[in-house]
């Protein structure tokens, strides 16, 4: 096993203060090896998105440390954090977050513009089966199609780490499998570390490692000895 991509120690996150404070993370300890596919499972509100946001440099923790390689994310300035996201991270957001005034292709271009070694937007959209819809605006796409644009946008920059918050939530199982296949191929070919949050427990089959989340902490870590191919997953 190579050097870990992330080492997380005692990570906490509190939203708000006093009475209305929400403890979203209550001390997370974790190691994510480089090049693995990691699946996070857990009930709604258990803190999965929160963890992803902190590791992806979108948010800051309240306590504990999270390091990417040798870099302590908490110690980075806003500027360095921007750099980190720009150079290393790909994101699929739970709510897609497409720019409404940009077409599918342009939404992907928004990321490839500033990436170091991107694939072409067309290629990325082709990977998620949207080559026919490249010039459509988000408002003209179904929820699942919007989600696939979001995935194309994340993979197109060929990041070192890919965070996917419920990437298949709005997809039928056939399309969902195709999307997972894309993630798996990226992982195999480029060694991209992939973190997937999902409610579909079956997805766990393709993971190297499965994290079970509950109440802001990791309850259980399972390492898969046998990985399934994405095409074999059924839910």
């Amino acid at each position, binding site marked *: 096993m190579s050097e870990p991509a992330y080492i997380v120690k005692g990570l906490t996150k509190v939203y708000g203060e006093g009475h*209305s404070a929400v403890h979203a993370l209550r001390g997370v300890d974790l190691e994510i090896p480089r090049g693995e596919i990691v699946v996070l499972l857990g009930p709604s509100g258990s803190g999965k998105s929160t963890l992803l*946001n902190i590791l*992806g440099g*979108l*948010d*800051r923790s309240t306590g504990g440390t999270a390091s990417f390689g040798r870099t302590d994310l908490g110690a980075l300035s*806003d*500027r360095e954090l*921007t*750099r*980190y*996201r*720009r*150079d290393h*991270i790909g*994101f699929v*957001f739970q709510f897609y*977050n497409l*720019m*409404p*005034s*940009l*077409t599918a292709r*342009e*939404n992907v*271009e*928004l*990321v490839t*513009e*500033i990436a170091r070694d991107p694939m072409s937007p067309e290629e990325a959209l082709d990977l998620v089966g949207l080559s026919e819809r490249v010039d459509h*605006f*988000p*408002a003209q796409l179904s929820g699942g199609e919007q989600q696939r644009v979001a995935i194309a946008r994340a993979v197109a920059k060929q990041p070192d780490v890919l965070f996917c918050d419920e990437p298949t939530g709005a997809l039928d199982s056939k399309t969902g499998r195709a999307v997972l296949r894309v993630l798996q191929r990226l992982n195999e070919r480029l060694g991209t570390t992939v973190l997937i949050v999902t409610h579909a427990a079956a997805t766990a089959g393709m993971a190297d490692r499965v994290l079970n989340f509950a109440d802001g902490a990791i309850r259980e870590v399972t390492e898969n000895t046998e990985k399934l191919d994405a095409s074999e997953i059924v839910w």
Partner: protein
Amino acid sequence: MSPLTHKLLRDLWRMKGQALAIAMVIATGVMLLVMMTGLVNSLEETRTTYYERYRLADVFAPVARAPNLALADLAEIPGVSAVEGRVNGATLIDIEGRSVPVQAQAVSLPDFGSPALNDIYLNDGRMLDSDRSDEILLLESFARAHGLDPGDTLEATMNGARREFRIVGLAQSPEFIFTTAPGELVPDDARFGVIWMSYSALAAAYDMDGAFNEALLGLGRGADEEAVLAEVDRQLAPYGALGAYGLEDQLSNLFITQEIESLAATNQSVPPIFLAVAAFLLNIVIGRMVEAEREEIGLMKAFGYTDWEVGAHYFRMVLAIAAGGALLGCLFGVASGRAMVGVYTQFYKFPFLIFDLDATSFVIGVAVSIAAASAGGVLVLRRVFALTPSEAMRPPAPADYSRSGRFGRSIARLLDQPTRMVLRRITRQPLRMAGAVVGIALGMALSASTITIYAGFTRTIDLTFSVVDRSDVTVSFTHAVSDKTILELQRRPGVIRVEPVRDVPVVMRNGLEEHRGAITGMVQEASLSRALDAGGAAIPIRSDGLVVSQTLADILDLAPGDSVTVDVREGRQPILDLPVVALAESLLGAPAYMDMAALNRVLKEPGRVSGAYLLIDDGQSEEIYTWLKGLPAVAGVSLKSEARDAFVRLLNSGAGWSRFIIGALAYIITFGIVYNAARIAYAERARDLASLRVIGFSKGEAAYVLLGELAAVVIVALPLGTLLGYYVAVLMASAFSTEVYQVPAIFDLATYGSAALVVIAAAVTSGLLVKRDLDRADLVEALKTRE
């Protein structure tokens, strides 16, 4: 094209309504600045060029009768570059169909060639033929006012003899841009004429062969005018010098200078106010527009766009709107400035027009717009940048309402759901609401102050002609005559009342300050022409000294207790020291009053009058006019109705005319501000409103949630606008006031009622426009994406 450029263009297109509304407001502010600055510049430039091209004299030296030989000595005075002697004569012109003769000035032109100074511009016809003594040129504006043309004949009385003349041409001169009948303040084209005749003909008529009664002098650069005036007076003293004066005291020039100064003063205070209001709005609205982009900003940041890159993107958007609006304003400003210069060229009878723009007004307009807009954008961007991307990407609404939810469960239960939503939004975002309130209040202040100015102008006219002067006819005598003339007037059937007046032309001095004007000697308890202050109360006339108008006191820097040097310019021309005993606010001119008998005493000319105010029987007016015309002592007769018309014309056509343009722009800005407030509120809430509709609210209820907010903002803005309007009005009133007339800032219910109506009308119109969009909105579209 980069995706951000696509986004920019599409966003601008999507917000085109809003963007245009914002751009129009800033355009209006910039337009006023560019237009007024261009106007003032052009008028100044045109006047200067007119003066130079037609060699207007720098010094005017009236004298009783001096031999032409004396001119050579005048030319030797250091600093004098040109000299011209001419004959001037007071004349009465008979105009067919008018029972009152019109006063005129006959001016000589050299028999051969053009004059060295005070040249004329021939509008129509031809120049004089010096062999024919009955040929005249007539002042063009006067001829137009009476429908006279070259080829027509004209009867005039010169030096007591009535003669018939032939008009061969119409002319204009920088010396007579404004003509004012003697003893009157307000210029009137119709009631004072200028006739040009060849020197030989005019000299013959006034027994001035080989002589002149006015010397004109041109000064070279850096000449010492004071020294020249003194030397001219010294040289001409043996010939009956009446006192040389400089161009700055020449009547027409005085008037045009004041007009331009008044426009310049207006330009200095009004456009900056408008621009500031527009800039404020721009700042607020751009801020809110960027605020609405918060999630997009967060998203770009999440992808690794730096603050600079995101900032640059929004700066381009801001630039497109602000600079677009400002440039539009420049274009409008140039176009309307050009049009206004055209109008003013006619008002001021310039024979040509020099359109001169001021580049700094463009720079200021564009820079202020961009700075205001950028400041609005930067403030918000900084706030959003301070958030982590994950916070920024989350729509801000749900989390934050928790606090305002507390405002009394019991009260809340009394209100229906939509009302609660309106109140929550207002209480939750007090800053944003405050911005909207101040914006609308400023809009109202602009409208209120322009309406105030309108009312001020009307007040000036009313006070002057209905309250101050209650006579029908004003008679002025050729010189100060014995008060027996008054008795003669009183005895005339049809004359109901006669009130004498003694106007003494003087130059008043206090230290270095100097003012050429008159002292008005009035009878105690005058009733036909009263000295009134700005409040409409009678100014008590004193016999122990002068009651000086505030305007004059400002010019001469006088206070009660001071004494002023009075250089009398008629009769024996004594120099007196008179005490200032009181100040009075006056609306018209810069008068100084004194008891008539006391004035005559200090002049050592008892029982003299220079004019009279008459109240006459309407039925006999024609006979009385004709009779007055025949009296040898009468120099002029002016009817109040004509004087009033002339004054109204002056207020509505000179510098005062710009108030209508400014008023129109004030309404446009007010509407723009209110419309923007409605528009941006809608843009921010489109998705919420669509959600309301989806869960079963009616169109009306959804509109209520949106427009209730606008209504609340407007209601709070009205009193604030009233207060701000007061200050803006005071500022504008002083800008519009000139030495000739003062414009008071009038504060009454009607003014503020009208201004409030302007705002309310704008709010209702904006509400309807926005509601139309709301009704048409596609629910699914609105929910899927954000407006």
